């Protein structure tokens, strides 16, 4: 099983300098844990000191913000597309 994850510019250095990586997991939390296995230090960049996803980092499954789904327990399956995107300003 394999899920494509889009990596934002500030995380590319920790993710082998790639725009997209493959990872596994049944939920977003598992997927992020798998990314930390593949790329040590990944977790620390994505979670804050209190163990929550950083508040200026958004995660999308097939274009939908996981905060409109089930957050980190949002289920994911083979072929899903996950994007990690920093919050950007409006206009």
């Amino acid at each position, binding site marked *: 099983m394999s899920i494509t994850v889009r990596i934002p*510019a*500030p995380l590319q250095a920790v993710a082998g300098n790639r725009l997209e990586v493959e990872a596994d997991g049944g939920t977003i939390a598992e997927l992020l844990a798998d990314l930390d296995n593949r790329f040590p230090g990944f977790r620390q960049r994505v979670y804050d000191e209190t163990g929550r996803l950083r508040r*200026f980092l958004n995660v*999308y499954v097939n274009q939908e913000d996981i905060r409109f789904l089930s957050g980190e327990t949002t289920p994911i399956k083979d072929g899903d597309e996950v994007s990690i995107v920093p919050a950007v*300003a*409006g*206009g």
Partner: protein
Amino acid sequence: MSSYIHHVQGLACRDCGRNYPLENLTVCEHCFGRLEPRYNYGAIRRYLSRGLIYSRPQNIWRYRELLPLTGLPQVGQSNGFTPLVRARRLAERLGVSELYIKNDAVNAPTLSYKDRVVPVAISRALETGLELFACASTGNLANSVAAHAAQAGLPCIVFIPDNLEAAKIVNSLVYGPTVVAVKGNYDAVNRLCAELTARHPSWGIANVNLRPYYAEGAKTMAFEIAEQLGWRFPRHVVLPVAGGTLLPRVHRGFDEFVKVGLVEGELPRIHAAQPEGCCPVVDAFLHRRDRIVPQKPNTIAKSLAIGDPADGYTVLESLKATGGSAVAVPDEEIIGAIKLLAETEGIFAETAGGATLAGAVRLSESGVIPRHESIVVAVTGNGLKTQAALDGALAQPVRVEARVEHFEAAWQELQKEAIAA
């Protein structure tokens, strides 16, 4: 321009404190926090005086020491210095004693507050040799980005949601950019642009990789308000919130004027207004949430329809720091406020301005803004771009034949109706 002495020194992360050189960065590389330019305020204090500001043209660049350019600006000569109107008739209607409208409905060249931020962003793009100017926009930013790209002669792409008002689309298309209408709401447009910056490092996306520079332009609204009031602050300022760029920079602008010694006194209390159909920041404020919960927007105020505001926390910090508050208003009150402002002051605001005035009315009625204290309400966009919002809300023209007796009969009829009403 090597002869220009600039006072901006670098970027600093508001969240973890890390410092960066002046680079085109969207967020802190470490914690994804918010980056802000740092200035040498001591040097600015010694150099920048009221007299020097007076001696310069009436546009945003008269405050250029407090803007993050490293050379002299090449575009934006008509931007800013919009009227601060003493709104006597409106004040009387609302029962308040000192009310002003900061009228960015007539900001130039594209009739919204975005004409303050975009010239700073494009100047930065030009200084750093970027090859294309772009943005993700609810409409007004796109208009301004397209116009300034034309001024500077840069290729341009504007990304907008596919449900925008026709006028906002025409007001981008006319400048000749590529207009990309993205299926979905503004937050989808934003996400797409955030992903694109990683692929196209030579593009300057105003609200993405130029964000720390772009946002600074909004401080000029505060600088102008203080200068136009005779180098003093009002007690209250009411501002609209969408992505949250404007409000915290107005706060920062007031704060900087104190830092560099141009104005003394207590900072104004800053209040936020959002439409009920998209009010994640007001919701977080009123419920004291530590995380902003994103919303799916549903409001006629499309320029405020940002359900996941990147600077929402920055807004909350400014409200708290200044003792301000937050208010959400229903669409009917937005329309009512647009009409009230037009009928009392002769100013035609777009829906965002209606939301802001409606919010001010509520805050005044509930006593949050005491009636005898001075208030500035920011009208940030022009009603000519959101005319559809008034469908069915205005009287119809009186139709007559071109004959005196026809007109006189119709006129008498109208006067009878007016007396009856």
